Structures are given as C-alpha cells and as structure tokens.
C-alpha cells in the first residue's frame, strides 16, 4: 500500500513539474524568470575549443545566474550518439548540428524550428552571413539552427617557395594553370588538391556550375559550368601540376603544405591551429579562392546550435542558444582564435580576415536529405577518373544518377 502511495506521489510530482515547466512559446516571455538546468552537447575538436567554450559559458552564467548549463561533449561518433538520443526522445536541450547532416535531421523531424521564437522574442537573424544561416533552412523554409561559427575555403600558399621560383600566387583559374606549369618547370608540384566534392565544388561554383536547382528540387549537374570546372580540375592532375594528398603520402593537404610537398592548397581556418601546432616554422599566407569564369565563389562550412523537438527545457535552451549565437557570446567564442564568426557584426580575429570576408560569396555546404550517398558517388567516381577509370562525363553521370534517386525519394 505504501509503495502505491509513493508511486502516486512521485507521479503527481512529475505532472506538476511538467506543467510548471511548460511556459514556452508564450507572448509574455520574461528571460529573467527562466531558471533550471539546460543540457548542452556537441563534439570537441581540441582542448583549446573546450577552454574557449567554457569562457563563453561563464559569460552566460553571469548574464543568466538562475540557469545552470550542463555541458556534455560527445566523444567518438557524434551522429551515432545523437541518433540514439533522438530515438529515445531524450536529446540534449541545445546541441551541435553539422550543416552536412542538417537536411537529414530536419526531414526526420528531430529538430525544433526557431522562427516563431525569433519572431515573438525578437531575435535578429539578419546579421548572420546567409551562406551559413541558409544551411539550416528546411524544405519548409523554416530555420532549424543558428550557425555557431563558420569557415570558408581559401587559398593558403607558401610565399617563400613561390618567390624563390619567381611566381605570383594565382588569382584566376588561368593563372592556376600557368603557375602550375611554371612550378613544374622547377620540379615543384604546385598544388595538393583534394579529390573530394567538399573541395572540388568550390571550383565548380566559380565556373557557374551547380549541383542543384535553386529550389533544390532537381539536379543542375548537367548545366554549363559543372563539366568545364571538372575538366579544369582534372587537367591540373593530368598535367602534373597537382597531386592528391594521398598520392603525396599525407592524410590531408595541410600536411602537404607543412612538409613543403606542395606550396599551394585550398583549405579553411582549421589549417591555422594545425600549422601553429605542427609546423610553427613554415611560412604561409591566405588569399581568396582564384576566380573562375563566373567570378568568385567558395564553400561555407558551418555547425549550428539547435534545439531538439523533444528537448525538455525549451525556454532555457532558447536563451542559451541565442546567447551562444548572439553578438556577445560569439565575440567571446571567436576571439581566442579557435573559430571564425558567422555574424557580420563580430569582427574577424587578426590574420583571418580573408576567411571571414569570403563568407560574402560562399555557398553553404548543405544540400538535401540523403546527401551522403551523392557525396560518396561523386568522390568514388572522381577517384576513379583520376586513376584512369573514367572522366568528367562518368563523374557527372554517376553523381546525377544518385542525386536523382535521392531527389525522387518520398
């Protein structure tokens, strides 16, 4: 009998708590009254990143002393860990979403849209670079996350090697070819070029090509620009001006730059901490991506803070989310140099101006649900073409086949 009483009492408690906590999405939202614990989850790329986040969370604590943040970074396979939490309907309150998987998670209905709150609680999203913010827009036009920071691709080059060879860093595709030839004449392979779409696509955009139509409903891969850019890129390999990191015997282009195997690479801001840590004595500089026939273009990589549909503490979550992606929080987050701001109103850290300003002409690295299959199709076909099994046409045919299959999925 006493057991039953206990169960009934705790049930009543749970119900009371649930009712008390469900004051979200009301018109009379008063941040000062929100209290409790809010859980925050993500992955941690480096100890510096953890330290920087702690500083931001201290700032949050000072502004909202009644809210406690429970930070639980996920070690290992983040997507797998989050999928388990979504399936159990127990996601953290605020968490990272990689732009690449955002369309999948939005389609699966595990994220909470933010537009209603932004409207009723007047959060200004116009300061985010569209290239970052648009990565988290669903097919319904709603926004499911705000970019916590961002990164673009730019050209990193070793000025010592280039000036010793008497060449200027290239600013256009044509110059890329001539620089490649000039360096080859001196026995230098100019470029370490990745054979994956997350680099090649920047060149495709610069030549006016695209993967998808503007409404993301059909493929645009066979429109002009795509094939031209592919042929340009493949030709750099064929002429011996470029090699893949794998053919240089390194795991990524940053290492090829550090080991002076290639003087020119195309990477993002993550290169800086790597070079400072591993190759502090190798000189390198940033420049915008070379222009193609359609002008400047690059790729924008980003990660959002999002709230789960089943997150338990929505009000506190909203306050944390908007603090972390707001002007003040992002300023603290990016000033240590671990990340670049995704907002126009936060100044770029010194030496990273190129990477931040490139966001103005960047296309988001975020496409459609099921994109990982398209990515795999392109990457494998591209490697095949590099190794003598195919050409630009086979890459286009195989990617289009997979892309169409994903677009036609219910």
């Amino acid at each position, binding site marked *: 009998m006493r057991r039953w009483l206990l169960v009934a009492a705790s049930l009543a408690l749970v119900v009371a708590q649930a009712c008390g906590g469900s004051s979200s999405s009301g018109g009379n939202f008063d941040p000062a009254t929100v209290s409790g614990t809010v859980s925050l989850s993500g992955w941690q790329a480096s100890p510096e990143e953890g330290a920087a986040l702690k500083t931001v969370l201290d700032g949050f604590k000072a502004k909202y002393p009644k809210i406690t943040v429970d930070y639980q970074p996920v070690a290992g396979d983040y997507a797998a860990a989050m999928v388990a939490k979504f399936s159990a309907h127990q996601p953290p309150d605020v968490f990272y979403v990689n732009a690449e998987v955002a369309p999948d998670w939005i389609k*699966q209905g*595990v994220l909470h849209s933010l537009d209603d709150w932004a409207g009723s609680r007047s959060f200004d999203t116009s300061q985010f670079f569209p290239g970052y913010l648009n990565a988290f827009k669903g097919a319904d036009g709603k926004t499911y996350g705000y970019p916590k920071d961002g990164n673009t691709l730019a050209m990193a080059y070793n000025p010592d090697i280039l000036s010793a060879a008497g060449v200027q860093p290239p600013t256009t595709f044509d110059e890329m070819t001539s620089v490649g030839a000039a360096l080859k004449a001196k026995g230098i392979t100019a470029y370490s070029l990745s054979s994956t779409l997350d680099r090649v696509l920047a060149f495709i955009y610069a030549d006016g090509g695209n993967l998808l139509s503007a409404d993301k409903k059909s493929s645009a891969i066979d429109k002009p620009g795509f094939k031209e850019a592919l042929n340009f890129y493949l030709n750099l390999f064929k002429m011996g001006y470029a090699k893949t990191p794998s053919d240089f015997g*390194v795991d990524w282009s940053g290492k090829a730059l550090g080991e002076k195997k290639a003087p020119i690479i195309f990477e993002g801001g993550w290169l800086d901490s790597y070079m400072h840590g591993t190759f502090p004595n190798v000189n390198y500089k940033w420049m915008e991506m070379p222009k193609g026939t359609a002008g400047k273009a690059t790729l924008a990589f980003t990660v959002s803070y999002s709230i789960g549909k089943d997150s338990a503490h929505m009000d506190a979550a909203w306050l944390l989310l908007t603090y972390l992606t707001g002007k003040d929080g992002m300023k603290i987050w990016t000033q240590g140099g671990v990340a670049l701001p995704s907002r126009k109103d936060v100044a770029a850290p010194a030496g990273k101006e190129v990477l931040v300003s490139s966001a103005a002409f960047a296309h988001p690295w975020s496409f459609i649900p099921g994109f990982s299959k398209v990515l795999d199709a392109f990457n494998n076909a591209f490697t095949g073409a590099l190794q003598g099994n195919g050409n630009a046409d086979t890459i286009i045919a195989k990617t289009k086949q997979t892309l169409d299959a994903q677009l036609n999925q219910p």
Partner: protein
Amino acid sequence: MLGIRLGRGSLGTERAQEALAGYAFIAIPLALFMIFNIGSLFYSLYISFWRWEILGPTDFLGLRNYQFILRDEIFHTAVKNSVYYTVIVVPIQMALGLTLAVTVNQIWRGRSFFRAAFYFPAIASSAAITVLFIYILAPDGLLNHLLELIGVVPLSFHNRGNWLGHSDTALNSVIGLNAWTTSGTMMLYYLGSLQAIPSEVYEAAKVDGAGGWTTFRRITFPLLAPAHYLVAVVSVIGALQLFDQAYIAGGADGNPNYALMTIVLYLYNATFRQFEFGYAAAVGIVLFIIIFTATLIQRRFFGSSDWASSR
C-alpha cells in the same frame, strides 16, 4: 537404501536436478543471449519490413527494402568486395596459422616467447594496426623504401606506389594486413588441436619409416580436420564482416572508387549516415543469410557434424 539409487525414478530426479542446476548456472548469460542476440535478430527482421527512421516506423514496405538492396549497384560492389576478400584471405589465414602452429609446436626452447610474439598482432587493436599500415603503405612509406632498396621503383607502378589509395591495390593491401593480424588467432586454434594428437600415432609412423613431410601430410593434416573446420568457419564469418580496417583505411564512403566498400560498411552508412534503420536491418538480414549459407556449405565440405564432433 544406504544412499544407493538404482530405481529409474530416482535417477530421473537426479538428472532433472542436475539439469536444473546447469540451467541455473547459465541462466543469466542465456537470458542476455536470448534478449540481445536472438531477440534482436527477430526484431531486426521485423524492422526490415518497414521504412524505419530515427523516430521509428513510418510506412510498412513489405519486401521493398530487400528489392532496393538487390538492385543497388553499390551493394553489388560491396558483396563482390566482401566475397573476393573472403575467398583470398581465408586460405592465407589458414595456411599462415597452420604454419605458425606447426613451427611453434616443434620449438622447445623459447616456445612461449614465439607463441606470444605470433599472437601479438591479434591483441593489438585493429584500428592501431590499420593506422600503422597506412603509414607503411604510403607512397613515401616503409614498404616503398624497402622496394627501392632492392632496386624496384614503386613510382613507376600503375598505382604510383600508393597501395591503399589506388583502387586496384587497396583491397589486396587490406587482405595482406588482415592475414597478418589474424594469423596469431588461427595459430592458437591449430596449436590446441596439434597438442591433442596422441604421440603414439607419431611413434607408429616413425616405426613404419615415415619421414617429416609424409608424417605431416598423412597424419598431422588429416587429424587436424576438426581444427580446419573451426578455423575455416570462424575466419569466413570474420572476413564477411570486414569493417574497421576498410573504414579506417578508406573512409565511410569506401574510397578509392568503392574498392573498400564492404557489406558491413554499407550497413553502417545506411544506419548512421542515411538514418534508414529499416533498410539497414534488411542489409543485416541479407548478410546473415550469406554467412549462414557459407557456414552450411563449409559443414558439407568438411564432412558431417558427427565426424567433426567425434574427433
């Protein structure tokens, strides 16, 4: 009765009690096995008939998941790669394991040292060994340096010395690495059986004037038949489930040019990159059928179960 139980009833009770005690001892592992192995097997079968995403089932698809799998070109590549890998790696593993076992069995001095040394790769984590091999097989890695020392120029090869990065050599490189890492485990299986062969048989062979090779061919090899069966089954199952080495060496996408796409990697992609749990469960069932069939064929090939268990 003085404690002597001869009656049928009492013997039966004793047996029943003994059986009960036995079941009591294995109750917990048995329950875990039933829930997490058998239970989840049937649950996957159930899931495989649905479109089942992160938040659960959405549509009943019947056999449509299976139809998609059987039509998908990438799955065909995955099966082709996994089968090729198995057909090549299993005989190598068995031959290596047997050679090591026979060698270790004949050494008396330092026997435990060699046993441990040969077994070492099996203890080390496959991820660590794969990373080590990525360095060894890199274009400027140890293997190519050794080749240059003996006058071979790897850069002139079709793969430009990029063993794991070129689609023509990637899978064979993983075969080489795995044959080496698993040989220690296979050696242990063989070693146990080798030591179970009674010495009288060898003495009799000696009396009959059999030499070393004849003894091995006519006595050791045939008497190891149960071990051959065990090793073959274990390594075929392991080989068809190849995942971690392929994932670490080639990435989730099976690059270069799908050379490292395996059935389990395909399953991983369906689950954690495409979030199609129903489809992934169907892939798991297809893999189960492939492994089950392979095991049945081996049973046929290596003789009846009586034969295997009576030795």
